[in-house]
């Protein structure tokens, strides 16, 4: 199949420190011109700028109908790549070939003018995004209906609430009809309700066979929507491929934590004279160390530690935090065999099983500790010892059911639901009838 986007050796260089020098005044230009011969005589560089490469030799191809996520930390070059693809700025070197009309949503509501009415802004914004007038007129009713602000369409948008403004702006953008759509974190704005709407619209576009490039920090949204991820790091493509593999790599580099950690000798391992940590890992039912777990499968956290001094009651405990650093929960060892029982010297392996359909989606960072409870002594506490990525493939049998949008919550248990049904009586069901009789 032929690619719809070909990116070949694209690089972009920026001057740094150019925040001030970019808007140079004539005086600065003149004085720099006057100084430069002197500087050359002194053997200094004629250019006072330092430069950085925001992108270095980017290569990839996207095929029609693909939904590709672009991830990377701040400053990795995501926005630069997006700006080049949407032709806002030009690459320093390299070449991109696009075999279709491209529409970009780098920010909804670009070009909205507060003094103009909703109607006027729909036309202006549509034209800015590259729609033809006839196209906007054809879609106008649908745009207004989608935005749910029909009664205010002839009111200047400065009187709109920010929610109304956003809804109208997104509606226009959602009715863009390009073969290639570039979306940047649009889902990050608005209330939950609106986010869901945006998300569904993206699903719809995906089903339509539209090629989508989706740029986000939100790993969950990206892994759910995209069949392929491109991971940028320091301006180069660090990884490109299956979302599950790439997201693991992304998680590793952003957490600096893998799903396994071990120490070679006890002297360097965390701990004190009573207990020291050998290793910690995340594993599945077959005992393999895993970076990622299907949300429906159980997963185990396992630590191996050495008890150096006998006679202490020890309680291993694990601390779970999500990508935002929020505490999800804490779990302490409940193994009846070792509860309140002093441990002898030797090596212990403690494993805690988290059931399937309990964790929430996304990255989970686990801190491991061994403590004595009365009085409380923490023998070691290795914060973010290991991490695991929880993936929901949205196949309908996880706790999210058939809903595909963002779902908040630190955990996502699959609960037992029951329903009672009272069939309607004969002749009932008319709202008036019941109270009258």
């Amino acid at each position, binding site marked *: 199949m032929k690619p719809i986007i070909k990116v070949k050796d694209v690089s972009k260089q920026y001057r740094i420190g150019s925040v001030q020098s970019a808007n140079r005044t004539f005086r600065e230009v003149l004085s720099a011109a006057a100084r430069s011969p002197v500087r050359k005589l002194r053997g200094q560089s004629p250019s006072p700028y330092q430069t950085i490469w925001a992108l270095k030799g980017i290569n990839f191809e996207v095929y029609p109908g693909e939904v590709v996520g672009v991830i990377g930390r701040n400053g990795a070059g995501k926005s630069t790549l997006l700006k080049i693809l949407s032709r806002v700025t030009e690459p320093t070197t390299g070449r991109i070939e696009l075999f279709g009309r491209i529409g970009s949503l780098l920010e909804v509501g670009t070009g909205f003018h507060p*003094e103009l009415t909703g109607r006027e802004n729909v036309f202006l914004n549509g034209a800015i995004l590259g729609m033809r007038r006839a196209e906007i007129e054809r879609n106008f009713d649908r745009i207004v209906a989608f935005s749910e602000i029909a009664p205010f369409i002839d009111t200047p948008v400065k009187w709109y609430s920010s929610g109304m403004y956003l809804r109208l702006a997104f509606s226009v953008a959602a009715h863009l009809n390009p073969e290639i759509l570039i979306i940047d974190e649009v889902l990050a704005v608005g209330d939950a309700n609106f986010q869901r709407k945006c998300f569904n619209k993206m699903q719809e576009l995906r089903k339509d066979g539209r090629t989508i490039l989706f740029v986000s920090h939100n790993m969950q949204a990206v892994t759910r929507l995209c069949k392929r991820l491109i991971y940028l790091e320091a301006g180069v493509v660090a990884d490109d491929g299956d979302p599950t593999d790439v997201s693991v790599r992304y998680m590793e580099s952003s957490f600096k934590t893998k799903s396994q950690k071990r120490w070679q000798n006890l002297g360097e391992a965390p701990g004190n004279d009573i207990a020291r940590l050998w290793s910690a890992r995340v594993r599945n039912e077959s005992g393999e160390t895993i970076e990622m777990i299907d949300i429906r499968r159980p997963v185990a956290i396992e630590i191996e530690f050495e008890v150096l001094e006998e006679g202490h009651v020890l309680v291993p405990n694990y601390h779970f935090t999500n990508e935002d650093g929020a505490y999800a929960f804490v779990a302490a060892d409940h193994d009846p065999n070792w509860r309140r029982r002093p441990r002898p010297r030797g090596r212990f392996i403690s494993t805690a099983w988290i059931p399937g359909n309990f964790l929430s989606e996304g990255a989970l960072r686990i801190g491991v500790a061994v403590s004595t409870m009365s009085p409380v002594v923490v023998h070691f506490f290795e914060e973010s010892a290991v991490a695991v990525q929880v993936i929901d493939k949205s196949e309908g049998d996880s706790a999210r059911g058939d809903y595909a949008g963002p779902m908040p919550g630190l955990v996502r248990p699959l609960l037992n639901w029951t329903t009672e049904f009272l069939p309607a009586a004969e002749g009932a069901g008319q709202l008036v009838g019941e109270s009258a009789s």
Partner: protein
Amino acid sequence: MDILQSEGALSQAGIAQTSSSVKGSAAGAAGLPDKPLIVIGAAGTWGGSGLKELWYYRELLYFLALRDVKVRYKQTLLGVIWVVMQPLLMTLIFTVFLGVLARVPANGKPYPLVVYTGLLPWTFFSSALLGCTYSLVGNANLITKVYFPRILIPAASIAARLLDLAISCVIMLGLLSYYRFVAHFPLTVTWQFALMPVVLGLLILFTLGLGLLISALNVKYRDVSVALPVLIQLWMFVSPVIYLSDLVPVRFRIYYFLNPLAGLIDGVRSILLGGALNTFALAVSGLATLILLVLGAVVFRRAERNFADVI
């Protein structure tokens, strides 16, 4: 950046895309053109393909100009009346201070007509040029977020002033009629009136050429927008706006008309009030317009690539 194919190819692709969306993703590849629609490269030119792209975006020019016009008069009490009032008030002020008090010679012509025929092209030029200068910086949010031919922004800000120019022309006709039929001042309509669109066209293109140059410079060097109002004031006094060019001593006149605006303003006045057209001055204006248009377009195209990075 180039659109290599014609607008036809773009709309064809649009149709192909619509049909493919019905059939789903499998049909997507079939609709792909052989040659890329858009090539993004390090070096771009502004050849014929650039013009095709401009044509494709022509409606945006209209919408941007419309926005400028609407925004200018929204929430004003008098609205469009201001377009009529402004030149009339200016004419009144200059007539009182220069015509009546300072007694600037008008060669036997009614001084209000002399001033108005000067203010008509001048007001358009100065307001359009100033608006144009600020236009790119004022639309920075668009430039850093979305792609379209950047030239549309300064072009639209000038286009938005065309409405004012048209209204001024209508007022002009009213004034001329008043002096001809009520005040019985001898005015005759000659074949020269046919040249009015040509002279006004030159004026618009001259403003566009200079506007492109200055607006592009202003993105990088904000000094431009600070210096420009002063320079425009100066320019007004070296152009025959509030006085007749006859006032200039004959031996200086050849230098005086090296100012392209002098020829244009003088041209408008000669056409409307009846006088010999200064062909030398108009030729200078025409040549200057051509040079500025080419220079403006080239400079703008070169600067355009960095707009998003420096604005």
